């Protein structure tokens, strides 16, 4: 809401600089985006939120400033009362669409240009001056917060002999061209004003082109209404036509204010347009005295509740004064006060609302800071967070940089994967945010690809939610640009698994994103945990990557199986003996299985570690270092002989061919 500072002075005698008022408002009332000052005037840009719809008007802001600075608010117009000689218009409003609808016919208008001051103020308030008859409606809307609309009366065809217009939902197939020149196909949920021929305005949103007022207009039908906020909101949103007007209808408009605004508008049409009120009509028709309470439903304020919620003592008389300054009617009540919000404060409905009014007027700077004294809930340490921290630290220590990637799959990623089974956003921002990822693999590849021109090799990991049917935390990592990418990724993965105390079996599987023969699934017990493998050469190529390996696992499942504490294995006091076994092993034979078989072959085998693997002339050469140790005695060459033979046989069983 743009508030020209000089306009406020129509209602209050404020002498402090506009900047100071802006500061005060932002500390006690509402956000102030900025205070812009030009030669003659300043404009305060208020960030009006839904609760303070009353501040979408000059008088609302003036009232608030008056309360903050304890100034006199000079008051606005009296409520409109149609002159006794005016005729009667009948208007109809369908149930639930408008709380109050008025139409005032003003005749014998003579056009002139909009007075300079009105045009200037409108411009400062962010509106363009169009023509006098339209400008008056906008001027009064800014001043009172009550949107008005003027129809050219000679172009409105009365519905029948008695009824001028009607507020109703649109019918299927109806359309309207609005004053901006656009034509809209209306839906039955839209709220419109209609004459005999059909829609003449989208209620509360925008008027129709056909009945638009202009310099040639002689008679107008001036509409002032309180439409159903939800109906206006829905219609405006659906048509993408949210405006100054529709925005105000979404708030708590009051009939009281409507009548004052109407009076002001009529006066301006009389003053500048020389018009004369010819007829008036309203719906419901009980007359304008009804439905316009000055006070809203009273709200009880308990003194103890006030002090407890604030955490400080505000003397009741003080609280009472502060409310009165804001226009509340306050009376003593049991254990506190009863406060009637003024009609313009539709946001005040519960005790807590009053507490806020008192607190902000009393000044938040006076609020003490009281430490939290309550006990903690005493739940045990958080296992998920522990393992999360541990895995992240471990991977970072192993050279992986942690990334945070977007939850969506890019169109490029989708080209590799397709969109099958993915969760879809109904209103994506662009094609890049339409599908939620069900795996982090392509995101890692994409981020690696983006880095590849500067980093020919690298390692990344991420620990973040992914969104297959049931979302879960995924731990994923990528290694690129190193000769043994698979082993590098697997080494980091194995260390992570060891630290989590989870035993995992790797077995061949199929996965579209991976090299067809180089992808394994991980399982622990019977549960599938994830995949690891070399990325498919086609995908590598499209991201300019070489030698890429990726793993991804369900971190929540991992944590379910993880063990924070691992039992100690006694360390033998007898010396270890080391022995290397070098042999050729065909690539199709599983070295991992061989190693674990060797580990299990004898209690004397403490460790079997791969110390070297290389390939030459199509042959895979492997060196295993075996650590022998007994828990009960020293080891002689004789003791080792049977174990050694067993290992040699195991190697032969895997078609291993001893190397000289």
């Amino acid at each position, binding site marked *: 809401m743009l508030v020209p500072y000089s306009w406020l002075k129509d209602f209050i005698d404020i002498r402090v600089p506009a900047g100071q008022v802006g500061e005060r408002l932002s500390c006690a009332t509402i956000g102030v985006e900025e205070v812009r000052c030009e030669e003659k005037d300043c404009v305060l840009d208020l960030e009006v*939120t839904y609760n303070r719809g009353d501040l979408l008007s000059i008088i609302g802001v003036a009232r608030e400033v008056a309360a903050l600075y304890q100034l006199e608010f000079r008051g606005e117009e009296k409520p409109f009362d149609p002159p006794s000689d005016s005729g009667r218009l009948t208007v109809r409003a369908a149930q639930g669409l408008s709380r109050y609808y008025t139409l005032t016919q003003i005749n014998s208008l003579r056009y002139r240009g909009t007075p300079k001051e009105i045009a200037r103020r409108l411009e400062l308030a962010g509106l363009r001056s169009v023509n006098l008859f339209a400008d008056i409606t906008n001027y009064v809307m800014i001043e009172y917060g009550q949107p008005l609309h003027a129809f050219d009366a000679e172009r409105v065809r009365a519905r029948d002999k008695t009824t001028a217009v009607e507020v109703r939902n649109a019918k299927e197939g109806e359309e309207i061209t609005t004053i901006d020149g656009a034509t809209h196909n209306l839906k039955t949920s839209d709220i419109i004003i209609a004459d005999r021929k059909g829609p003449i305005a989208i209620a509360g949103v925008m008027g129709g082109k056909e009945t638009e007022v202009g310099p040639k207009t002689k008679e107008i039908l001036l509409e002032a209404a309180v439409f159903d906020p939800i109906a206006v909101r829905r219609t405006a949103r659906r048509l993408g036509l949210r405006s100054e007007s529709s925005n105000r209808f979404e708030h708590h408009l009051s009939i009281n204010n409507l009548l004052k605004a109407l009076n002001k508008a009529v006066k301006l049409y009389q003053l500048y347009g020389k018009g004369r009120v010819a007829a008036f009509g309203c719906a419901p028709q009980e007359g304008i005295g009804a439905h316009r309470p000055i006070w809203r439903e009273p709200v009880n304020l308990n003194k103890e509740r006030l002090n407890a919620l604030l955490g400080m003592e505000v003397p009741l008389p003080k609280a009472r004064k502060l409310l009165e300054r804001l226009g509340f009617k306050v009376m003593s009540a049991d254990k506190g006060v009863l406060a009637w919000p003024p009609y313009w404060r539709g946001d005040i409905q519960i005790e807590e609302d009053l507490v*806020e009014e008192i607190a902000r007027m009393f000044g938040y700077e006076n609020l003490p*800071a009281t430490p939290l004294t*309550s006990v903690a809930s005493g739940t045990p340490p958080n296992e998920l967070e522990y393992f999360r921290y541990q895995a992240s630290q471990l991977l970072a220590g192993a050279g992986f940089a942690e990334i945070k990637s977007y939850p969506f799959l890019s169109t490029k990623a989708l080209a590799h994967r397709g969109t099958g089974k993915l969760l879809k956003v*109904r209103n994506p921002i662009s094609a890049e945010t339409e599908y939620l990822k069900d795996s982090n693999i392509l995101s890692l590849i994409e981020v690696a690809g*983006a880095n590849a021109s500067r980093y020919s090799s690298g390692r990344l990991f991420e620990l973040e*939610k992914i969104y297959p049917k049931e979302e879960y935390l995924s731990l994923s990592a990528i290694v690129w640009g190193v000769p043994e990418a698979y082993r590098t990724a697997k080494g980091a993965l194995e260390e992570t698994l060891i630290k989590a105390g989870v035993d995992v079996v790797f077995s061949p599987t199929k996965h579209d994103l991976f090299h067809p023969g180089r992808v394994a699934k991980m399982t622990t017990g019977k549960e599938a945990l994830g995949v690891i493998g070399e990325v498919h050469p086609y995908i590598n190529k499209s991201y300019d990557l070489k030698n890429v390996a990726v793993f991804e696992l369900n971190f929540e499942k991992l944590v379910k199986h993880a063990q924070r504490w691992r039992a100690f294995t006694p360390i033998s006091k007898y010396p270890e003996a080391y022995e290397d076994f070098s042999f050729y092993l065909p690539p199709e034979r599983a070295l991992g299985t061989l190693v674990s078989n060797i580990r299990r072959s004898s209690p004397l085998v403490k460790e079997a570690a791969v110390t070297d693997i290389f390939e030459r002339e199509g042959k895979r050469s492997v060196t295993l270092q075996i650590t022998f140790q007994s828990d009960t005695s020293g080891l002689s060459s004789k003791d080792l002989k049977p174990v050694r033979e067993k290992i040699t046989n195991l190697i032969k069983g895997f078609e291993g061919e001893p190397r000289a």
Partner: protein
Amino acid sequence: MNAEEIKEKSIAEISQAKAIDDLDRLRLKYLGRRGLLTQLFAEVPGLPSIEDRRKTGETLNAVKDSIEDTLGRRERIIKQLEKRELETAAFDLTVPGKKALAGTLHPLTQLRGFVREAFERLGFEEAYAPHIETDSYNFGLLSMPPDHPGRDLWDTLYLNDQTLLRTHTSNIQVREMEKRSRRLIEDDVPIKVMSFDRCFRYEAVDPRHTHTFTQFDLLYVDKGVSMANLKWLSNYFMECVFGAGTRVRFRPKYYPFVEPGVGVDALCPFCKGKGCKICGKGWLELAGAGMVHPTVLENGGIDPSKYSGLAWGFGPDRILMIKLGINDIRYLYEGDLRFLKQF
């Protein structure tokens, strides 16, 4: 060799010695258990006369002393030489170290650890709520029924009418109250939970905005929770992040699920409130908070006439950007190693 010859020869050899090891060897050669001089000592008891024994003994002892002396002197000289050699050997101390294999934790992870620790000290524990959330937990139960204009504060990505990508971590609120209200009511265990996690909004990506962002939220429900507690919490956190003595102020702010609602500003730590490029006018708008709306408490199964609660939250992306001087939010989410390797 007689004693005199031993003396001469040993002294000559010792004076030639280049290293401590040589001295040890020479000491052994002459004075060791089977050393040349020791052998002469061994012959002494076999000498015929007392006088011979005494004279020879004296002579040998004199030779021994003189060898020891020479060894000692030579040792000092050698050490001196070695020291000088160590001192003068060229060695470039500024040679860059060998690159250790070290990755990094994302700055958001680092901040998460910091914030979690800060609030764990106050007894808050992590709560988890889904990213793909129902309209109810994200809006409806937070006092924003469908068509409530308050929803305009959030531009939302929907999967369908009832399902959306959560717009804030405040979706923990009613979920956690539902889980914990019984212990609160029956065992007087306060609800103290927090969440540091990601959220989403309908927003085009530019240097200041992303559709994916991070939020921190905490919820505290107990008897007698007050706005003064909220003030203390705000002071505590801002001091944690920006240092002791950081000033904090409240301003009225509207969130549909709290009442009263406040915006929490910290006095800019860079210009101390004078106004600068980072803060604009001296205060940084950093957090939002308020007293849990009674309707929300009721929705969580808690009687607002007996209990009160506070909700407090901030945007970690923004705090990180301010604290670390990051000028483009996209760095946090696009995985550029030139960015990540700095942390």
